[in-house]
């Protein structure tokens, strides 16, 4: 090739300084034969692969550094290089000492003087980078999990109340039954009515626990969308959190029409409702007028659910950012700033969307679904 440097025309000094540069470069430079034997390697490469010196490496098989699970990826990489596609690949290489490190490799085909083909590769240690990336991904996942649990935790206290009430009913009814029996003042009708109450109360407790299980259960994305009754999903979500809203004096009105159905997923949608209700809860705390109104709006191929609260809307400069992950107006420790971004992600997974409707005098979020 004409544009290649012909070393024979260069001064010895220049050649020596070039060799020194190649050896000192903070990157592994390696020449491999067609059968992947090491023909040449610079000093950085020797150190990177944890050899004592370069002479013990020359002629050895480069494939020895590539663990079995990475071999196919490496072969693909070589095929690309032979086609002169300068593709880069990240491989988990195993050094001479058996340490595994993530390395990025760039290769291209190279013509030797005897017309044989070789591969020239640059190998760069990206182990730290890859590990940091993995760590970040893991943290993000953990944070999303935390958000899910905190939404749940906020309702846990209300839930305890919800369950302790029916338990009080059962406990007292059974005790009254035996007390009255001892006193000899228990009629057949009373027995029937007591047992009926106990039975209904068990069903009610079961319904509460069931709803909780729906919200906490993890579900993969592979779960298929189905046409679900939106009013019922909202009502179920309310059963596990209405206590908290009642206590705060927030009236929630569910005006979703009975037959409104949309393509969604029960549990995930419940999470969206919880996130929006939670946001309203925080926003309404300081207001005198406290209500949340949930309505459905049928369109040709879509259904919209609007969740409006008595708040007076969101400032435009804040409204622009609310869907961004980690954006929060709550005090440190009170919100993760993930509620709306998770809701948005969930709505996207339904092929729908969530948006803030700035055209209303009150704060309104709209969920749009396909039907």
């Amino acid at each position, binding site marked *: 090739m004409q544009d290649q440097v012909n070393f024979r025309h260069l001064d010895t000094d220049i050649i020596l300084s070039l060799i020194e540069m190649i050896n000192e470069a903070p990157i592994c430079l390696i020449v491999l034969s067609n059968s992947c034997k090491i023909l040449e390697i610079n000093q950085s490469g020797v150190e990177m692969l944890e050899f004592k010196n370069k002479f013990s490496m020359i002629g050895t098989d480069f494939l020895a550094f590539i663990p079995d699970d990475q071999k196919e990826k490496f072969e693909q990489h070589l095929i690309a290089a032979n086609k002169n596609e300068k593709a880069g690949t990240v491989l988990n290489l195993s050094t001479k000492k058996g340490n595994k490190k993530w390395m990025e490799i760039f290769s291209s085909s190279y013509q030797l003087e005897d017309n044989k083909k070789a591969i020239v590769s640059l190998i760069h240690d990206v182990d730290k980078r890859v590990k940091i990336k993995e760590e970040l991904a893991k943290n993000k996942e953990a944070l999303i999990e935390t958000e899910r649990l905190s939404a749940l935790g906020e309702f846990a206290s209300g839930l305890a109340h919800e369950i302790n009430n029916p338990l009080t009913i059962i406990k007292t009814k059974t005790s009254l039954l035996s007390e009255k029996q001892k006193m000899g003042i228990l009629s057949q009708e009373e027995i029937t009515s007591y047992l009926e109450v106990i039975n209904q*109360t068990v069903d009610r407790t079961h319904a509460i626990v069931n709803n909780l299980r729906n919200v906490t259960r993890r579900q993969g994305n592979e779960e298929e969308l189905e046409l679900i009754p939106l009013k019922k999903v909202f009502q179920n979500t309310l059963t596990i959190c209405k206590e908290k809203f009642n206590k705060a004096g927030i009236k929630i009105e569910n005006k979703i029409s009975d037959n409104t159905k949309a393509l969604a997923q029960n549990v995930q949608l419940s999470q969206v409702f919880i996130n929006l209700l939670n946001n309203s809860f925080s926003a309404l705390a300081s207001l005198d007028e406290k209500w949340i109104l949930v309505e459905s709006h049928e369109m040709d191929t879509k259904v919209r659910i609007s969740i409006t609260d008595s708040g007076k809307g969101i400032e435009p400069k804040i409204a622009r950012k609310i869907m961004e992950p980690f954006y929060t107006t709550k005090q440190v420790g009170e919100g993760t700033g993930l509620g709306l971004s998770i809701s948005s992600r969930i709505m996207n997974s339904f092929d729908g969307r969530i948006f803030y409707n700035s055209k209303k005098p009150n704060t309104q979020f709209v969920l749009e679904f396909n039907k």
Partner: protein
Amino acid sequence: METKKVLIAEDEAMIAAMWREAFSLHDCEVVLAKNGLDAIEILGNQSFDLLITDLRMPEKDGYALIKHIEEKRINLPIVVCSGYIEDEALLNQNASVKLLLKKPVDIGKEVQNLIQEINPKPNS
């Protein structure tokens, strides 16, 4: 023995009805209030020997009701019965609060004990 009057502030109708039933077995007169606000209104024109109150209620909650009773210096022993009692602070900070009952409770048994408290023993 004069009839004792008990006020129950409880938003859960079924539980309120059980308090009524249990106290009635001991010949007490029972008045039910759906929430704190309701109870405050009733306290405005009737006097009672005992108040049983829940904490979490719509309109005015149990805390607000207790505060009202203390501020107005109404002489009324209070029993708090709730599934949401996190600490003993209520008992320590409010002289009127005599007892904390954590749900789930056996209302029948609790009423038996409470009756002993509000009816002075014959020889004392």
